[in-house]
């Protein structure tokens, strides 16, 4: 039995760049999501009464409401980011349930990239709403001595975001693989159902936590 935990098999090379299985999976998921989004946007402008356009409006509205509840006001950019993160992670996790497909989020590289996106969005959002000085000032509150702790907390929560998503998805996939190898057909079905739930939950949590972090940076200068 072959266990794959940290490795990522190289499928083919483009020039000298190795293309791994995770890259292919995440690219396919991204293209499918973009195609669906373009289709829904086209439909929503042409025929707003169609039920698919209503579904699209509901999705956008629910992300807007989520961000409004957390940040305290409507913020289209943040809800776009949170919605994109949620849809991408959820699609990757669910794609992992297809036979023969390894979930792209079960690779530490993908989750680290997503966490770095959130890590970089936090100061950008903070500087946009508070100005450079207003954002940097919050590092020295309530006491300049606490500045290293602020920095460490930003770094460690980025690490926690990446490792949490990776560990959950990878372990769920690993348990299903072990059960298939040990017990065989149909036994891992309940675990796969649990994996579906965990995949959606982790995507939701990633989106919520990134919204909370960005919202904290936006309101950093308001105390």
């Amino acid at each position, binding site marked *: 039995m072959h266990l794959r935990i940290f490795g990522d098999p190289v499928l083919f090379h483009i020039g000298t760049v190795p293309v791994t299985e995770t890259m292919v999976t995440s690219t396919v998921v991204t293209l499918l999501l973009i195609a669906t989004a373009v289709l829904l946007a086209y439909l929503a402008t042409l025929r707003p009464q169609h039920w698919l356009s209503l579904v699209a409006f509901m999705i956008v509205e629910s992300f807007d409401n989520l961000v409004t509840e957390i940040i305290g006001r409507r913020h289209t950019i943040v809800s776009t980011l949170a919605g994109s993160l949620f849809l991408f992670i959820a699609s990757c996790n669910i794609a992992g349930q297809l036979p023969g497909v390894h979930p792209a989020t079960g690779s530490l590289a993908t989750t680290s990239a997503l966490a770095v996106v959130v890590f970089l969005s936090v100061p950008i959002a903070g500087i946009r709403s508070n100005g450079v000085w207003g954002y940097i000032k919050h590092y020295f509150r309530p006491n300049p001595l606490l500045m290293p702790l602020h920095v460490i907390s930003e770094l460690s929560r980025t690490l926690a975001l990446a490792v*949490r998503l990776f*560990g959950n998805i990878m372990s769920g996939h690993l348990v299903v693989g072990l059960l298939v190898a040990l017990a065989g057909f149909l036994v891992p079905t309940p675990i796969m159902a649990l994996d579906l739930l965990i995949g959606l939950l982790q995507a939701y949590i990633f989106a919520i936590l990134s919204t909370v972090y960005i919202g904290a940076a936006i309101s950093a200068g308001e105390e």
Partner: protein
Amino acid sequence: MNDQTIIAVVAMAGAGLTMGLGAIGAAIGESRIGAAAMDALARQPDEASSITRTLFVSLAMVESTAIFCLVVALILLFANPFTGAAGG
């Protein structure tokens, strides 16, 4: 018993201990979160959506310590730099 066997035995025992001891704290914390959320739901059923959202987020944050233990245990078992089986 050569060196490789000793390393493998210690790594397996360490992985078991990591997972077992690491799950204790997360389990206690999650049970307390669940109990507190039930209490809050019973007192204020109107706030159900907000309570549920906070419940899931805090469950995930507490659970991440157990997930870290799992990742460390898997590194010990499958990507241990001392056994020559690195790379999983």
